[in-house]
């Protein structure tokens, strides 16, 4: 064998040996982490419990945000965006106005309510109240012909404004005594509702973020205390020649295991909790069905997300918590 070849094979042999050692070291770090997890029973239970509560808070925060978003969209869809037509408007004009409105990009749905339909709805609402019914039957029907519009974005009524200013069929048929609901005095009421809705959304978003940060800090502190309890152990490891990664690795593995177990437990508890509060929340008129259905339909993803979040918090916390003790 030539000198160069001999040199090459010696080099690749040394490289192989290094790789083998690296692999062996990684496996040992995992083994130590698993050992610590299983042998420090109390610490494991305490840290996993704190992390479970943390992840449950995160789960609940997201669920609450889901319910809030549904509530907001429910309120938004109920906001009265209406234009009013003459009582004797022709059906083909109504069809033209409806079609023209539906062609606008911000319009979600358009519904025409004739004065007769409105009266019928009023009568239905007053069933059992004979005096009111009697009064209604005697009174002239002063209810307007209404076109009710649902928008994708209730903050943006510019398309509707330009529609009422420029659509000739509407201008020819509009009820001159009634302004559109999104104009004039009623506009202020709608603006107030939209302000509250976007405020609630923003607060919900901030609350989610704040809860996640606080939860992560609680876990970080728990892991920091767990590591603080073992600082003597870390000092000893350093003194007998363990390098940083070898010391840190088992702590990271251990914290990942807290995160994994906590992720699974918190998901189970979270789903149980959602079902438990469903009835009371429905009684309060909150739309929880979508959140529950989405969670159950995507349970695999939710579980995976919770596990990843748990592991991530564990890894980051233990990384930073050990850093302090790993200075030479």
């Amino acid at each position, binding site marked *: 064998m030539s000198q160069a070849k001999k040199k090459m094979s010696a080099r690749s042999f040394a490289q192989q040996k290094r790789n*083998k*050692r690296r692999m*062996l*070291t990684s496996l*040992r770090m995992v083994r130590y982490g698993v*050992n*610590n997890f299983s*042998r*420090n029973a109390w610490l494991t239970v305490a840290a996993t419990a704190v992390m479970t509560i943390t992840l449950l808070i995160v789960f609940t925060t997201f669920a609450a945000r889901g319910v809030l978003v549904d509530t907001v969209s429910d309120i938004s869809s109920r906001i009265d965006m209406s234009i009013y037509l003459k009582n004797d408007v022709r059906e083909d004009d109504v069809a033209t106005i409806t079609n023209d409105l539906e062609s606008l990009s911000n319009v979600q749905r358009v519904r025409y309510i004739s004065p007769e339909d409105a009266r019928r709805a009023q009568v239905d609402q007053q069933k059992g109240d004979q005096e009111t019914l009697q009064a209604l039957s005697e009174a002239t029907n002063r209810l307007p012909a209404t076109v009710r519009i649902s928008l994708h974005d209730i903050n943006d009524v510019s398309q509707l404004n330009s529609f009422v200013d420029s659509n000739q069929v509407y201008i020819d048929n509009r009820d001159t005594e009634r302004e559109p609901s999104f104009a004039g005095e009623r506009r202020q009421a709608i603006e107030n509702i939209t302000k509250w809705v976007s405020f609630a959304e923003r607060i919900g978003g901030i609350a989610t973020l704040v809860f996640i940060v606080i939860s992560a800090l609680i876990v970080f502190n728990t892991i920091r205390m767990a590591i603080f309890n073992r600082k*003597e*152990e870390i*000092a*000893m*490891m*350093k*003194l*007998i*020649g*363990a*390098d940083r990664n*070898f010391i840190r690795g088992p702590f990271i593995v251990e914290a990942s295991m807290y995160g994994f177990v906590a992720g699974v437990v918190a998901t189970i508890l979270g789903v149980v909790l959602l079902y438990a509060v469903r009835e009371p929340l429905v009684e309060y008129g909150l739309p929880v069905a979508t959140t529950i259905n989405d969670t159950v339909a995507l349970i695999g993803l939710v579980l995976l997300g919770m596990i990843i979040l748990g592991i991530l918090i564990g890894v980051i916390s233990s990384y930073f918590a050990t850093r302090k003790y790993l200075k*030479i």
Partner: protein
Amino acid sequence: MILLDRVTKTYGKDMKPALNRISLHVEPKEFVILVGTSGAGKSTLLKLLTREEKPSSGKIVVGGIDYDTLKDKHIPLLRRKIGVVFQDFKLLPQRTVFENVAFALEIAGMTNREIKNTVPKVIELVGLKGKEKNFPHQLSGGERQRVAIARAIVRQPKILVADEPTGNLDPKHSWDIVRLLEKINKYGTTVLLTTHNVEIVNKLKRRVITLEHGKITSDQAQGSYRQ
């Protein structure tokens, strides 16, 4: 094997130096006892050798390694060449005797086969055969110190630093540990022992270095404890 040249260690600007221009030379295979009252500078000296602390000035060379040129990332490699034994044993409480001793080899990346071959021999050498599966809390103080010694020598270091290894032990167990250190020294390891035990110092008849207020006040080839 160990060379200290005018080493000074000061912890704070206005503090008295813990070590004041210490010069010391220890030959390979020597057994050296370091004595002195608390605060005399013994622990500081050992911390400088294990590179837990850096000297404020002066030069340290151990086993041919000049600490001035030693990079931080190479400190673990240096420490693997020095065996260390502490007064409070510093064992891993959640690991068995075997695992505690094996740990010193695992961090050095030795294979499982090498570990299985080496560890039982060392455990037998320190007289703990049959206790491999015990956890530290199931052992007496003397036995725990034997585990610590086994862990310190399993990598066959050229130097063994023992910081008050008998400080927590009764006289019988203290002597067992000292005899063990002598045995290790006989196999060729340089031993640096710190102790307060007058009887041990006087009976061993080894080189005794006395530290007082950060200075070496005596260095006797076959010394005794100077009160």
